[in-house]
């Protein structure tokens, strides 16, 4: 028999994937978003301690389109989205591919609560295209997509499932381990959950919460225990952003990693960016969830191992 990487089930998933992508584009154009297409190769990635970029010549393959899209916001574009490939070195597992499809969108003059509404509408539209309107099936269970979805703060999550308070987990350097082992598997099993208000030191590019600077306005969307998207009310203060970048860059150097120079043009343009909210969603994982696949491998045309 002829060897084919596309058994019938996978072929069907790739066809459904195309339908889901069409629904995603239709959703955004109906909301008045402009589809943009920024370069995949960039000279200076955002210094992030835990994301390793892949070199491409003397430049790098983007780990996300964040830099270019925020510069477009600074230039006056108000609602933009992009579907593109991103690369992150060393990430491979049931939910990870070193090259993956990203859906990223930004709204100016909005905070991250506006993105929660977008998520609800987007996933509902995509579920319709996948043939399961209003729900998705995951690990034998049924997850309702009815609005409104649940919201849980990181602090509450540690109290409910983590066995210790958030501060203690940070002090003892157990935050990630507890998140992965005890918290994530319990999130979004009946209904999608927005995990909100990350500790300030995990704020990344998010602004701190007005009135409570101990937490950042950042959320992660979880469905069926799987992290689907990361969102911020964007930090638009170039000086604070520069300090955070420098800190991340030093952490990278401490760990023996490449300490990239800071993205100066981005920092320059950030001063012109209006208050905005932005979100990055793993498109392969969305397809996976909608089609009831158990691994990201089942919803892409080729895995790296098959090339």
């Amino acid at each position, binding site marked *: 028999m002829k060897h084919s990487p596309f058994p019938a089930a996978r072929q069907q998933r790739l066809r459904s994937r195309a339908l889901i992508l069409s629904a995603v584009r239709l959703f955004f154009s109906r909301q008045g978003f402009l589809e943009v297409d920024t370069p995949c190769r960039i000279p200076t990635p955002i210094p992030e301690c*835990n*994301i390793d970029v892949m070199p491409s010549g003397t430049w790098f393959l983007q780990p996300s389109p964040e830099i270019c899209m925020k510069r477009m916001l600074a230039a006056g574009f108000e609602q933009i989205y992009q579907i593109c490939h991103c690369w992150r070195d060393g990430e*491979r*597992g*049931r939910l*990870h591919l070193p090259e993956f499809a990203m859906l990223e969108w930004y709204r100016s003059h909005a905070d991250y609560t506006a993105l929660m509404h977008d998520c609800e509408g987007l996933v509902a539209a995509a579920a319709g295209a996948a043939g399961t309107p209003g729900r998705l099936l995951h690990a034998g269970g049924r997850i309702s997509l009815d609005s409104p979805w649940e919201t849980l703060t990181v602090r509450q999550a540690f109290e409910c499932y983590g066995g210790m308070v958030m501060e203690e987990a940070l002090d003892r350097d157990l935050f*990630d381990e507890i998140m*992965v082992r005890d918290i994530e598997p319990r999130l979004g099993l009946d209904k999608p959950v927005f995990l909100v208000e990350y500790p300030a030191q995990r704020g990344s590019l998010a602004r701190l919460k007005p009135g409570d600077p101990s937490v950042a306005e950042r959320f992660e969307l979880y469905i069926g225990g799987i992290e689907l998207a990361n969102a911020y009310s964007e930090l638009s203060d170039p000086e604070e952003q520069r300090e955070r970048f420098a800190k991340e860059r030093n952490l990278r150097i401490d760990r023996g990693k490449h300490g990239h120079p800071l993205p100066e043009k981005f920092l320059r343009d950030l001063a012109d960016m209006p208050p905005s909210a932005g979100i990055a969603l793993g498109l392969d994982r969305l397809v996976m969830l909608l089609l009831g696949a158990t691994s990201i491998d089942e919803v892409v045309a080729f895995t790296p191992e098959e090339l």
Partner: protein
Amino acid sequence: MYTVADLRKGLKITLDGDPYIVTFFEFAKPGKGQALYRTKMKNMINGSTLDRTYRSGETFEPAHLEERTMQYLYKEDTNYTFMDNQSYEQIGISEDSIGDARNFLIDNLEVEVLMFKEKPIGITTPNFVNLRVTQTDPWLKGDTTGSDSKPATVETGYVLRVPPFIEEGELITIDTRTGEYSTRVKE
């Protein structure tokens, strides 16, 4: 020395002085967090299991395990004695380490003994062994219970289901992986 990049199901490593086999492995990365490697491991000596999560850069000692072909000699109390086919050295293995293999041990049977730091920790019998039936009720013609199997005891004391036509004194082949009857041996 292994690194986290070598982790996979079936890898054997040494932890706290004991050999462990990785039974579950998953790469995980919480949003904006660090890469983590979740594992479940089984102690190869006592069967206890462990959940461990590792970070990039952590290393492991391989478990140096060796298989030796040995012949089963005899049993005394709960101790089974084997002879190494190469060195003719005799070693004793406790009933706990023998496990279910005890059901298939007959004199002179060749087995693979798994050694860790010169200590036997388990044995593997051949996939098929021939054992003699020492007790089974005769098949009554006209049996209307419709049963297509009956219990039989073999020379090791092991009891299994066999087809109705098997008689006492006959030799049968047993699949040691499932413990089930395979065929009747023609003598």
